[in-house]
């Protein structure tokens, strides 16, 4: 049974991978905000962000094909979202589309240069509430367990099914599968909680914490800040 992983290339060791999770969270979030704030029609600014992101992607050593495939997977949603705002005119739509694509690539780079566990730790240290961080952690941990459960259920269904049944019958099967899955998840959650209690859980999730904020982090953040500043507030030689 196979599943694709959110942070598939997070175990490489490019300069980007070595940065502290907090640095990347702050830096990439700043980039996303900046991209969202670019006015439509400022093609040069769009281009410079695209260029920066291309460089980051290059540094990250994530295979280009992977980034393209991931982007293509989500492309239909972006197109739909873009078309939902037809009053913006062609230029506006183009800008909307570009912004979405750029943000998406930034997120792909972020999640594939930082292991999910570190990302969570970073979030936690940046002040994200405990309950949210641990829930995200559980989601990541059990997504695969749940996926496997679904795959097994589907196999079991297919083994006992000959040909195609009527739509109504299919839907009712699907309904009971979903119901079963819900009940199983509930029961698993209960067993998990028991396991947590057994190891002394008393309401506070402990955080394992290797400190690692050094000058490359500072340099990275400074670089991003400078870039955003220049693209927004001008630079004598930059065309407006």
């Amino acid at each position: 049974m196979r599943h694709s992983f959110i942070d598939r290339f997070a175990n490489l060791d490019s300069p980007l991978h070595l940065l502290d999770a907090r640095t990347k969270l702050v830096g990439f979030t700043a980039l996303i905000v900046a991209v969202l704030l670019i006015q439509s029609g400022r093609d040069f600014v769009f281009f410079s962000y695209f260029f920066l992101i291309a460089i980051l992607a290059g540094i990250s050593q994530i295979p280009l094909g992977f980034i393209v495939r991931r982007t293509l997977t989500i492309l239909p949603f972006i197109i739909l979202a873009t078309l939902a705002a037809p009053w913006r005119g062609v230029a506006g739509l183009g800008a909307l589309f570009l912004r979405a694509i750029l943000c998406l690539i930034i997120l792909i780079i972020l999640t594939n240069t930082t292991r999910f566990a570190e990302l969570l730790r970073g979030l936690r240290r940046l002040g994200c509430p405990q309950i949210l961080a641990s829930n995200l952690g559980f989601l990541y941990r059990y997504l695969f367990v749940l996926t496997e459960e679904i795959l097994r259920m589907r196999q079991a269904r297919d083994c006992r099914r000959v040909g195609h049944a009527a739509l109504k019958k299919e839907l009712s099967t699907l309904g009971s599968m979903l119901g079963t899955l819900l009940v199983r998840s509930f029961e698993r959650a209960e067993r998990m909680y028991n396991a947590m209690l057994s190891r002394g859980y008393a309401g506070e999730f402990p955080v394992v914490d290797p400190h690692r904020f050094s000058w490359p982090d500072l340099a990275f953040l400074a670089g991003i800040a400078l870039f955003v500043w220049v693209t927004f507030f001008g630079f004598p030689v930059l065309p407006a």
Partner: protein
Amino acid sequence: MDVRIGERVAIVGPSGAGKSTLLLHLNGVLMGTGLIRIMGQTLEQKNLQQIRKHVGLVFQDPNDQLFCPTVYEDIAFGPMNLGAPEKEIPFRVEKSLSDSGLDQSMRSRTSHHLSLGERKRVALASVLAMDPAILALDEPMSNLDPRNRRHLIELIASLPATLILATHEMELVLALCTRTAVMDRGKIWADGNTRDLLSNADLMHEHGLEVPLSLKKT
């Protein structure tokens, strides 16, 4: 029923006999009406944390037990909750990994990438890290292939802790425990020397169990 320090006791019984439920009572995850004393302390709401330090419970399905993003965090979870000093944590993780026969490189892995055999051992490591005096294992061998099974049996046999083992695998009981209690429908029906009880065909059959092949008279 009394279990002495260092003793290895098996709780055997058919599925649904109440073995897992009994284990969950040992550290107060479930609270019944009876009396449980652990290391001289009566189990109560107010000393739960202390009791949980003494009783390490290993669950049947390691997916229930390993809920953290990485193996390291899962093993560190117990000792950190029990207030072990932060400096000590890496050493505790290191020691319980090696005690469970696992490689140190395992610490940064995510548990869903591990094989079942590895996951079972990490689950054991996550409990050993708390340095429990009493180890309670629930069906530790289910679904393991023979090699992993053998490794795990050797591993458990080498641990100094008092062992309480809930299972319906009779050969396993024979290999690990000198004393056995037969449990069925929520009650203990017999308690004594493993070989004597397990070779008693009538007793085994009455409670949905079987005399292990190695004890059958030819």
